[in-house]
């Protein structure tokens, strides 16, 4: 089978291009630590969220330099997010845990690259850091039923000292009971890259 020499050159150029593409992705993931949603290994029963960390969605300080927010995406609103914005501190590592009790939703913080799916029975974990106070819109970008077009909310980044740190005080925007009932809160998360050894209830 003889291939025209111009064709051989083109095959070589194509292979170099493909390897170059894969290399730039590897640089992004390994070099700059910019990845995507992974497998947190936690599965939960979507119909029994009250026994999990999502019983009382909201934000709290997991340690002095790590803020954790749990969000429930349910048919046609984010809790917190729609009725009152998700509050996160600036210049601090923030981890968002999102799940859904009913159907597949999308969780896209418009204007950032936080873009992931929310699937009943799974826990979506997004770790990031916001560098300046600003308010972002949150949009569900996966069709989830009749009210999908109105499912949106807000995420507001505030200076870190705005969010009270004491465990007993009403943390940020924990709606309802203020004592964080998080029994399964992990130990202090050393670095964002290491997934905290969460034990789901």
């Amino acid at each position: 089978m003889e291939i025209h020499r111009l064709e051989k050159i083109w095959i070589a150029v194509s292979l170099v291009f493909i390897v170059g593409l894969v290399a730039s992705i590897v640089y992004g993931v390994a070099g700059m630590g910019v990845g995507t949603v992974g497998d947190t290994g936690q599965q939960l029963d979507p119909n029994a969220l009250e026994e999990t960390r999502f019983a009382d969605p909201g934000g709290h300080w997991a340690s002095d330099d790590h803020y954790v927010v749990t969000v429930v995406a349910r048919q046609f609103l984010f809790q917190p997010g729609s009725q009152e914005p998700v509050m996160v501190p600036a210049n601090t590592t923030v981890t968002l845990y999102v799940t859904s009790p009913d159907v597949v939703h999308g969780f896209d913080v418009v204007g950032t690259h936080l873009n992931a799916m929310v699937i009943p029975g799974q826990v979506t974990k997004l770790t990031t850091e916001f560098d300046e106070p600003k308010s972002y819109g949150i949009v569900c970008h996966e069709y989830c039923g009749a009210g999908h077009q109105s499912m949106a909310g807000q995420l507001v980044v505030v200076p870190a000292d705005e969010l009270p740190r004491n465990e007993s005080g009403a943390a940020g925007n924990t709606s309802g009971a203020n004592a964080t009932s998080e029994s399964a809160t992990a130990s202090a998360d050393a670095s964002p890259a290491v997934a905290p050894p969460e034990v789901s209830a």
Partner: protein
Amino acid sequence: MTYVDDFPGEARVVRTAFAVAFASIGLGGALGVLQALFRTGYSRSLFSAVDYYSVLTAHGVLMALVFTTFFIVGLFAWGVTRSLDTGFRDLRFTWGWLALMTLGTLLAFVSILGGIVGFIPTHAAVLYTFYAPLEASPTFYLGLALLVVGSWGAGVDYVLTLRDWRADNPDERIPLQTFMAVSTMLLWFVCTLGVAVEVVVFLLPWSLGLIPRVDPLLTRTLFWYFGHAVVYFWLLPAYFVWYTIFPKLSGGRLFSDPLARVVFVLFLVLSTPVGVHHQYGDPGLSQGLKFVQMTSTYFILLPSLLTAFTVVASMEHGARQRGGEGRFGWLRALPWENPSFSGIALAGLAFAASGFGGMVNAGLNVNALVHNTMWVPGHFHLTVGTAVALTFMAITYWLLPQLTGKRLRLRTLAAVQPYLWFVGMVFMSNAMHRIGLAGVPRRTSEPQYEQVIFNTPIASIGELHLQTVGGAFLLFASLLCFLAVVGSTWLGERGAKPLAVNGHIPSALSGPEHSPRVLDDFRVWVALTVLLLLIAYGPPLAAMVQNGLFAPGSAPIPA
């Protein structure tokens, strides 16, 4: 001799398949324009924001599943019988699977219609990806299952006809068109296993209430096992046209037959173990798995880049045989006034542009820039909406006269139609890409929120909406032209004037005899495909099934 005189029975089968295809693109196109008007806010009185999702499901199913599948089985039926120069073994079996496919389509369409009109008791506003736990009526799933099983019948028909032909010609190489048709159908058998298991084992009993729960992540992964390979099931028939007919239309011969076979084998082997690149944003799938499938996704670029070289080289060969000179001067010598030629050339150009969009989508982390935003519809309206659909329309102008024995009518309208489609798609798709970069979500009837602002970098949201609607109008006008030409040709008078087209296809510049014989041995390639699938999909599916086939499960939520 014209095809319709050689194989009248087979010609009628192909005509019927094309008729269903053109009916569904006609209806699907009309729904598409209504959606564009609704989404951009120009007219919100046609249907409610909730009905929009049933219209979107109808548009998706009619265009992406019905129009493509029917045209493909028709095109391959013509390709196989023409290149093997023999009819099907038993036309009753052929009419059988075509009837099954049509029944499935009607069942699915009526189920979707039920969501809009009151008197039909079904609902299926679940879009054409029908993710659980949103649940449609059982008739919707049954309809899709029948459509797929019917198309399996078509594959079996081609393979049996090839086996008969090889029994009579043991040492001859498989003719190129049959090689391409059979390898595409083998890919179709392998990839539809995923959606068949999802629908028959999980969703159908689940929507009938026989099983209480299904695991949304498992059904979703099974769908995307099928979801990416189906885009190659749509693309390879377009490559079939580009490789075997387009060189002749440009006045030349195919540059290399062996390379075409290598490309189709690469697609057969690599198409299915890449589906997870649609699930980068999904929880529950490890980043390692996503990275492996991303690498094999990028390697699928290779056969497409090879196709670019071979097809453009064949076009240049034709131009030079028509007297074209110089480094680029030959481009002017090409028959731009022939709609079969111009449609395919413009489709190729659109596909080259959409290739870049595909690279951005396929990146593990850069996908977060565009996932589920309007960028994605912008991308696939260029790939399946133009590269495949415009190729199918263009080749109809060349094929329909041979199938009906009637001369093509309204040839000026036909000559304009591809350009109208191409320009309309450039406007609509460019607007979709730009509005997607600003973060506007797809699959949303009214993307205007009280709490969210979208900052588009160049034009305002209003201008992008206007550009989208302008493009949609041009596309619909072009669709009307196409249906007008096809309709009036079909109703024209047979045999009055000699055809303006010629069915002969010249041999390739470097023929199949130069290529190794193993290329024609499909058993080897299917075995390799199955091996790659076990590596790519074995571990994740096993992990999901570990904690129970249906856990963590969700009950159906009717949509």
